[in-house]
């Protein structure tokens, strides 16, 4: 009976969403010029007259070369990154905060104090390969967030990869226990750093999270203003945060 109701309701929900689909443009048939993202792609937000734009005057820029050029309002080749860390950096701050909140939450909820034992020895391959792979993994993680503004990736994937390294450590070594003081300090200081970047932006440019560094040439490593820096702080923060979560989960309470 319960399943029947569930199927009925679920089907109803699916029907509803299909009905709602009719209100949006069909798949793949999107006119970007109606959307704000056209200007994110064109990196010309500052030159658009917003009040005209919202009232229908779309001001689409003509075709132009971006890669390798200088002087844009945003310098990262990866437009998604430019949105994430520059145009909508505040969202990302929120995102960082979500992760932080959940890390704090996990800590408060689990409240463990003692390393949990699996009660069996990790096997040989795991132990040995961990030693080999660990630096590589960490290096890869760092690469991902350092190149966040150029290639797909960024702080979050990079941090996750680093946390995966920590997880590997936990799996391969029963004695291993993350130094919580270090990870918490890293986490806290990196988080603060992000906010401080924002505050510097506020002090320098008059707006919170203002990009106060020069943008450089689109496509080069040292470009895109604060984006790489922010991604680095995010990467480190996420790495330490998720490592902390991994550590928390591997801890159990006394008694």
């Amino acid at each position: 009976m319960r399943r029947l109701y569930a199927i009925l309701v679920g089907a109803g929900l699916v029907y509803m969403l299909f009905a709602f689909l009719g209100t949006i443009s069909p798949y793949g048939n999107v006119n970007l010029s109606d959307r704000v993202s056209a200007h994110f792609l064109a990196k010309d937000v500052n030159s658009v007259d917003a009040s005209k734009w919202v009232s229908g005057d779309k001001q689409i820029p003509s075709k132009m070369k971006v890669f390798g050029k200088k002087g844009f309002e945003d310098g990262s080749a990866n437009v998604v990154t430019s949105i994430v860390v520059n145009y909508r950096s505040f969202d990302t701050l929120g995102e960082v905060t979500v992760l932080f909140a959940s890390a704090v939450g996990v800590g408060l909820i689990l409240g463990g104090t003692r390393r949990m034992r699996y009660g069996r020895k990790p096997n040989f391959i795991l132990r040995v390969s961990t030693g080999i792979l660990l630096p590589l993994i960490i290096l890869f993680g760092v690469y991902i967030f350092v190149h966040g503004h150029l290639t797909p990736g960024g702080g979050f994937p990079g941090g996750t990869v680093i946390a995966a390294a920590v997880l590997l450590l936990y799996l391969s070594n029963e004695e291993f226990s993350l130094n919580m003081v270090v990870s918490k300090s890293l986490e806290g200081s990196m988080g603060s750093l992000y906010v401080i970047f924002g505050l510097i932006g506020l002090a320098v440019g008059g707006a919170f999270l203002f990009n106060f560094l020069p943008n450089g040439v689109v496509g080069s490593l040292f470009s895109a203003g604060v984006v790489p820096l922010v991604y680095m702080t995010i990467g480190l923060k996420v790495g330490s945060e998720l490592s902390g979560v991994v550590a928390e989960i591997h801890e159990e309470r006394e008694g």
Partner: protein
Amino acid sequence: MISLLIAIPLLLAFVSVMWKRISKSLFFLAAIVNLIILLASWFPNGVEIHAMGNWKPPFGINLVLDNASFYAVLVVNAFFFLVSLMPKFVESYGTSLMLLMAAANGFILTGDLFNSFVFMEIMTITAVTIASKRDNFYNAFKYLILGGIAGSIYLLATIFAYTATGSLNMAHVSMAAISASSLIAITTLYTIGLGVEAKLFPLNGWVSGVYGGNDLAPVILGTSVSFAALYMVGRLFGTVFHGNGAEVLYTLALITIVAGEVAALRQQNILKAFAYSSVAQAGVVVAMISKGTAKSMGLAYFHLTNDAVAKFVIFLVAGFLVYNYKNLNGVFKKHKILGASFSMATFSLIGFPLFAGFQSKLRMIMALFSMKDFLFPAVMLLATLIEVGYVVRWNVRLWFEEETQEKAETPVVASTIALILAILLVAVFLKPEIFLNGAMKMGNALADSKDYIQGVLSVVKGGM
């Protein structure tokens, strides 16, 4: 300046993980700084925006400080400040509370739909964390699941809004020409997405478990967070969607009122009883908001403020009692000040004269009658009648039954705060302008979407 309201608690939250021991003090610091910032920028009487990263709306994210958001932020931060005065109460939740404060401020101030989703999720996660205090895990988990579903639906709604308008900016969405069916899709999804946080029936299953499970959660979630959520209801349905979908909200809210009160009537747990009461009051507020005029919205928030103050006192006292006494009979004989504040707050809840609730309730009824709405006052009065039943029952039980237990230590700070707030309720009865002016300004700001659009979209430079 506005961004500091979010940045400072956030910064201090990050700092506080490094120095756990001072997290309570940092929380206090954050609260007081926020309050000072707010007092410094009193009612803006216009629309001030702060474009994040200097990206002008509708492209970037912007914070909007108008009378509405100012009033909401003021109330929310005031409650956080009050909580921060009670370090015993905060325990190790200082960081979470700071995050919650930042999230609530962000949720209220933001002028961007997706950004509001992000802050809502932060709120949910920190609220779940706080709800899990005192091993209240299952209820917290239920809240997490419901919050998760609501979040997804809210996100879907946001995406529908984006595809329909090409922008996530509230002001832009508000002015954009959206087809009727599209608008229905968006507002339906938003109704559900916000309904969970706004405690609309039957999306409010989490409330009793979360509010009834520990002493901290109801005090902060029942006041600040619910104010923030209900602010968003007004912002979205009042300003952004111009009352589209208000009838649904209205109907749901009326059902909520009755359901909340009858559920409260049978409760044997005092926290849960008043949790249901806050469900019902949220229903009143939402129904009032859904009437859509500036006056009705202003009165809704006036009522919400009164209710939040009263609930703060009630939950504070009830939380103290529940976790210090096994049997609550006659405990107020030992805690006269707590008892007096509790009674005053509960009477305000009912709307007895001499207390603030009277002012808001009567004004609402009067406004509704002048709008020729005869159903809602009847429902409200019926609900109040049920409320009288359990409020009097609790008061009588807590004051007059034979006491059985040894006296627990009186919380000095909490008693003082409770008493001050209770006296504030009397003061509001005598001089309703204390809350009313702000609330009416808020109502005007929420109802006036033209002003909002003008204020947000014509300003090019992000200001301080």
